[in-house]
């Protein structure tokens, strides 16, 4: 069974609450105890004063002098619970309040009046405590002292109702508890504030990590708190290691492509020149291999996509791709209309963005009759890039077919493959692709990617 909660704030809250409650309970008990002690001392002093007065009635020979035993109020009031008694070796004296009846002392405690071992001197004898009940059953608090006389010990007892101690204690308990609860409330409030402030760097760090993942920043820069700095260093090292691994993986994929494509190209040329492949089966097999390589390289590229996400200005990349397309389609004078704000930026991996825009633009140039139009609009946190051509376009069925969310691995190698790669890459970067009919007459491809106006 878990003792501590799973969350950090939960743990801090639980441990702090536990210790605070224990501390408060201890404090309440301590204060209560001190208070009781204080009030009890007051009662003791009063009883001790009476004992001191009455003690004067005890003669050195053990006789009791009635005239010296003065009854001060409230010891002269019967039924008040206040009473005193002197038990001499030969006779007894009682307070008026007792009305001639002996004090109801606890029974079976014959040794209760025994002296302390060190209490043999009369002057140093200090009164001791005793609890009992009076005839009415009230709890009475007694003080007594044993005085040595020539004929033996004389016991001087004085008692008062315990209730007069309990009453102020009960009265003090309410404000005491109230202030303890108030203190607990303040401590809890302080705890919550402390947790909020103390844990704020954690949520800030989480936001930074999210920024890194989304490509808004590349590394995490935090100057405080010092406890988090080693973690931030480790995170940055992890980000770097991740980027290096990605670069390596891309290198491996490129090597694989090169390694397979060159012999395949040779094979293809050989087959085209030799007469051995009469029915074209070998050529078909080579083309199948070629399709497989293209397909799986596309898959690999999509699977490793989204690595080094960064903020990319659209215009320079579109211009680079257009310059390439102008040469690729050098014999086709195509006018390219560019309606893109120079400040528009997309969050994407640079190679992935080139791949997405390159495929879409290539498609547009390939099918356009005379014009390709590129527009970019910011829509909230996304940038919508529409690429239109004035070519023959696609049938509605084909557009629906291409817009269906078919995954790359379900897609046959072939015609829609480029579109499938673009869609998968766009979705990996939190975007989407929608195909439709353009007002120019041809195909309209609308690509949405996370972006902003820089």
């Amino acid at each position, binding site marked *: 069974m878990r003792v501590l909660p799973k969350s950090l704030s939960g743990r801090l809250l639980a441990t702090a609450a536990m210790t605070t409650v224990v501390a408060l309970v201890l404090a309440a008990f301590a204060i209560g105890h001190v208070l009781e002690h204080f009030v009890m001392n007051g009662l003791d002093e009063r009883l001790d004063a009476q004992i001191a007065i009455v003690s004067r009635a005890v003669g050195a020979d053990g006789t009791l002098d009635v005239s010296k035993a003065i009854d001060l109020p409230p010891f002269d009031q019967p039924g008040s619970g206040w009473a005193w008694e002197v038990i001499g070796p030969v006779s007894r004296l009682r307070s008026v309040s007792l009305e001639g009846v002996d004090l109801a002392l606890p029974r079976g405690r014959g040794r209760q009046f025994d002296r302390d071992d060190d209490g043999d001197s009369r002057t140093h004898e200090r009164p001791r405590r005793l609890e009992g009940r009076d005839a009415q059953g009230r709890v009475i608090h007694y003080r007594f002292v044993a005085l040595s006389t020539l004929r033996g010990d004389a016991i001087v007892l004085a008692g008062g109702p315990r209730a007069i101690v309990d009453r102020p204690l009960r009265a003090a308990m309410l404000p005491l508890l109230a202030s303890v609860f108030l203190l607990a409330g303040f401590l809890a409030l302080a705890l919550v504030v402390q947790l909020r402030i103390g844990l704020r760097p954690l949520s800030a760090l989480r936001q930074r990590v999210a920024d890194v993942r989304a490509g808004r920043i590349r590394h995490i820069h935090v100057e405080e708190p010092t406890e988090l700095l080693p973690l931030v260093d480790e995170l940055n090292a992890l980000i770097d290691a991740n980027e290096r691994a990605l670069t390596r993986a891309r290198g491996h994929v490129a090597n694989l492509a090169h390694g397979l494509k060159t012999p395949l190209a040779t094979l293809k*040329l050989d087959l085209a020149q030799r007469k051995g492949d009469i029915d074209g089966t070998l050529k078909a097999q080579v083309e199948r291999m070629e399709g497989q390589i293209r397909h799986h390289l596309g898959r690999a590229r999509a699977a490793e996509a989204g690595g080094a996400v960064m903020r990319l200005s659209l215009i320079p990349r579109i211009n680079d791709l257009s310059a390439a397309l102008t040469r*690729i389609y050098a014999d086709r004078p195509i006018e390219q209309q560019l309606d893109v704000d120079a400040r528009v930026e997309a969050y994407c991996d640079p190679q992935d963005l080139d791949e997405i825009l390159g495929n879409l633009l290539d498609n547009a140039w390939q099918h356009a009759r005379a014009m390709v139009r590129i527009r970019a609009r910011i829509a909230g946190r996304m940038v919508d890039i529409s690429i239109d051509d004035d070519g023959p376009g696609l049938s509605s069925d084909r557009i629906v077919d291409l817009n269906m969310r078919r995954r790359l691995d379900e897609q046959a190698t072939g015609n829609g493959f480029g579109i499938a790669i673009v869609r998968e890459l766009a979705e990996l970067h939190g975007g989407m692709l929608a195909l439709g009919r353009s007002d120019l007459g041809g195909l309209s491809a609308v690509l949405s990617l996370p972006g902003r106006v820089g």
Partner: protein
Amino acid sequence: MRVLLVEDDAALADAIARALRAEAFAVDVADNGEDGGHLGATEIYDVAVLDLGLPKRDGLSVLADWRIGGRTLPVLILTARDGWSDKVLGFKAGADDYLVKPFRVEELVMRLRALVRRAAGHAASVISCGPLAFDAATGQFQIDGLPLKLTAFEWRVLSALMLRKDAVVERLDLLERVYEGDADVDSNSLEVIIGRLRRKVGASLIETVRGLGYRLTAGA
């Protein structure tokens, strides 16, 4: 038309060279970046086919050096790197076209012919001069609307003159574009080829410019 082929894979280079020669191209092959770079910087070629991943020197740096050195020959990059970022890098380095392996040989030949034609300043694929017409896309010559049968050497000379019609093509320039780098060139053989061509297309079409070279012209 003389092609510089820089490709390190011997089997592929051999297959490409064979295919191009079958289409009457003269082909020089370099199997590393250093030799290829040197050939492209010093010899005359109509077009270069350049692989990117080459031993000794990377194809992109070879290309960039040619451009810095003022070499304007059209260059087709032939590579397995099919990403658009790679294509952009290739074109930025000065490439004129980009073909991804594996490819169809017809595609390569068509693109090379188009590159040579455009480099000579012809926008349309059919070039004509009097009764003579040259389809730069197919490489076919026609005279008076009928197909003209030519040997590889004849085709190289006539296509070089046709692409620069009405201009004088220097003898040395013509020789460079007709013979492969390691061929034994007999200086008289060019006159022999010109003589045979004159018989096929009509003597008046090919002028001899004394001390300079030859000019293909349909007359003033």
